[in-house]
C-alpha cells in the first residue's frame, strides 16, 4: 500500500483537521463526536440539511458543507457509516428551529444509523425527516436485495436541497424536492482498478490488465459483472444505455448530466467520456441543460467513472444555478 497517510486508523480525523484549516472561512470541524458544520450554523429559521456516510468519497459529504448546500456532514471511518451519536450531535448543532432533513444513501448500515439518530433527535424535540437516495441502476430493486445503492444522485440532491433551504423552503417542501430528485435521478458506475482501504492495507479486489468491473458502487465492492476493457465510446454507450432505459429518459427531456470520476481517473478521460455522453444524449433528443464533470463522489484511488442523469424541471434548474460556496462545489458567489 502506497498512501500519503500516517496511522491508517487516524485517516478520517487527520483529513478533517486539514479540511478545517484549509476552509476555515466556510466550515468548522467537531472531533468529539466527529462532524463537519457550516461556520455560521445554526442559521435561524432555515431548514437544516445533514448528510453523512463513510469517508473515502471526498468531496462527498464533508466537502459539500457550506452556504447553499449542506449544513453538516457526518464522516464515518473509511467506507463505514457514521454512528448515531455523530448524526444526532450534528443535527442538534445545525437545527435553526425549522427542523432538519437527513439525506441518506441506501446502504444497510447508513440507513440503520440514521434511523437510530433520528429517533434520538425526535426524542429531543427536533423535527427530522429522512430521504434515502437509491439511484444505482446496476442493482436490481426487488424484495430480494437491500435495494438500489445511493450514488451520484446524492451530489445533485445535496446541491438542490441546499439551495431550496437557502431560499426558505420549509422542511416538508425540501423533503418533497429531495424525493422528486431521487425519483428522477439514475446512475451507473464502472471501475478500471480496485481501491485500498487504508486500514485493510490491500486492494479490495483484483482486476486483470485487460479487465474492468461494470456496475460498481462506491466502496470498492465488486460490480455486477467483470468484462474485458473496451474503448471509452463503447463503454459510455453501454452505461448511458443502462441509465436512459431505466427511468426512462426520452426525447425532449432536459437533464442535469454528471460524469463523475472515482478518484484515480484523470479529468482528461472524464471530459472524453462526457463528450461521448453528450453525443449520445443529443442523438436521442435529450438536452443536457446543466453539466458537472469531475471527482465528486469517489472511491478512494479507484480508477473509473460513473454517469448520473437527473431529469430536470423548472423547479430544479434555477435551484441548480443558485450560489453555492463549499470546498467541493462553488459558483455564483
Amino acid at each position, binding site marked *: 500500500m502506497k498512501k500519503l497517510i500516517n496511522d491508517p486508523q487516524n485517516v478520517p480525523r487527520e483529513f478533517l483537521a486539514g479540511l478545517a484549516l484549509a476552509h476555515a472561512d466556510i466550515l468548522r470541524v467537531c472531533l468529539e463526536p466527529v462532524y463537519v458544520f457550516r461556520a455560521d450554523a445554526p442559521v435561524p429559521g432555515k431548514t437544516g440539511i445533514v448528510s453523512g456516510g463513510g469517508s473515502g468519497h471526498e468531496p462527498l459529504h464533508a466537502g459539500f458543507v457550506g452556504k447553499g448546500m449542506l449544513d453538516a456532514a457526518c464522516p464515518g471511518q473509511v467506507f463505514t457509516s457514521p454512528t*448515531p451519536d455523530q448524526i444526532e450531535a450534528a443535527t442538534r448543532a445545525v437545527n435553526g428551529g425549522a427542523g432538519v432533513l437527513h439525506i441518506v444513501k441506501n446502504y444497510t448500515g447508513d440507513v440503520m444509523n440514521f434511523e437510530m439518530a433520528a429517533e434520538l433527535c425526535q426524542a429531543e424535540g427536533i423535527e427530522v425527516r429522512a430521504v434515502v437516495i437509491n439511484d444505482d441502476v446496476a442493482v436490481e430493486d426487488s424484495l430480494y436485495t437491500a435495494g438500489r445503492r445511493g450514488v451520484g444522485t446524492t451530489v445533485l440532491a445535496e446541491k438542490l436541497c441546499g439551495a431550496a433551504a437557502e431560499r426558505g423552503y420549509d422542511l416538508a417542501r425540501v423533503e418533497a424536492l429531495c424525493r422528486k430528485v431521487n425519483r428522477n435521478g439514475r446512475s451507473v458506475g464502472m471501475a478500471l482498478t480496485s481501491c485500498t482501504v487504508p486500514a485493510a492495507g490491500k486492494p479490495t479486489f483484483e482486476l486483470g490488465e485487460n479487465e474492468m468491473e461494470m456496475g460498481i458502487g462506491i466502496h470498492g465492492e465488486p460490480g455486477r459483472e467483470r468484462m474485458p476493457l473496451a474503448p471509452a465510446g463503447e463503454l459510455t454507450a453501454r452505461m448511458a444505455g443502462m441509465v436512459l432505459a431505466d427511468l426512462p429518459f426520452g426525447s425532449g427531456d432536459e437533464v442535469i448530466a454528471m460524469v463523475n470520476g472515482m478518484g484515480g481517473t484523470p479529468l482528461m478521460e472524464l471530459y472524453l467520456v462526457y463528450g461521448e455522453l453528450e453525443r449520445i444524449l443529443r442523438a436521442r433528443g435529450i438536452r443536457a441543460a446543466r453539466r458537472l464533470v469531475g471527482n465528486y463522489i469517489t472511491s478512494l484511488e479507484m480508477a473509473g467513472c460513473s454517469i448520473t442523469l437527473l431529469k430536470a424541471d423548472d423547479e430544479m434548474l434555477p435551484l441548480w444555478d443558485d450560489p453555492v460556496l463549499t470546498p467541493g462545489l462553488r459558483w455564483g458567489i
Partner: protein
Amino acid sequence: MAVGRQEVLRWLEVLQQVYAENRQWLTDLDSAIGDADHGINMDRGFTAVKAELAAHVPSDIRSVLQNAAATLIRYVGGASGPLYGTFFLRAAAACAGKTEIAAADVVALFQAGIEGVGQRGKAAAGDKTMMDALLPALDAMRKASEDGDGMAAILDKGAAAAHAGMLGTIPMQARKGRASYLGARSIGHQDPGATSSCLLLQAAADTWRS
C-alpha cells in the same frame, strides 16, 4: 453452574481477543462480498468495550451489557454497530434485576438479543446474514433447555448450530446487506456477519462452560 457479573465481563474480554485474532479473516470474508471492513470494525468496537469496562466497572450484569451496547453503537459504525449494539441492549434488558444467569436465563438473554437483531436488520433466515448463524443457535438452545440440559450443553449446542448456520451461508445468495448488490456472485462465499455471530456464540460457550 450460573453465570455472574464476573463471567459476563470475562465473555466481553474474550470477545475482544477473538475479534482481534480474527480481524483479518473477517475482513477477508468481507472483501469477497462486501466492503472489506468487518474485522476492522469488530476489533475497534470490542477494543473500545474493553477499555470502557476497564475504566468504569458497572455494578450489575444489566449495566455491563448496556455499556457494551452503547460503546458498540458508538464505535463500530456500519450495519454491525446498530445490529450488535441492539443485541447487547436487548440482552441487557433481559438480565434486569439479575445477579446471576441460570441455564434458563441464558436462553432468555440470547432470545432477546437475537430478536432485537431481527427487528433492527429486518433479515429473515436464508438472507445470508448474521441471522443465519443466530436463528439456528437460538432454536438449538431452546430445544436443549426444554430437554433439561445444563448451561454447558445449552451453550455448546447453540455454538454448534451457529457454526453449521455460518457454513450454511456459503451456498446462499445474499438478499440483505451489501452482499445483496452482487446478486448471484455472492454465492460461494461465507457471510462475514454470520461468521462474527458464530464467534460470539463460541466465545460464550468457551467462557461460561465451566
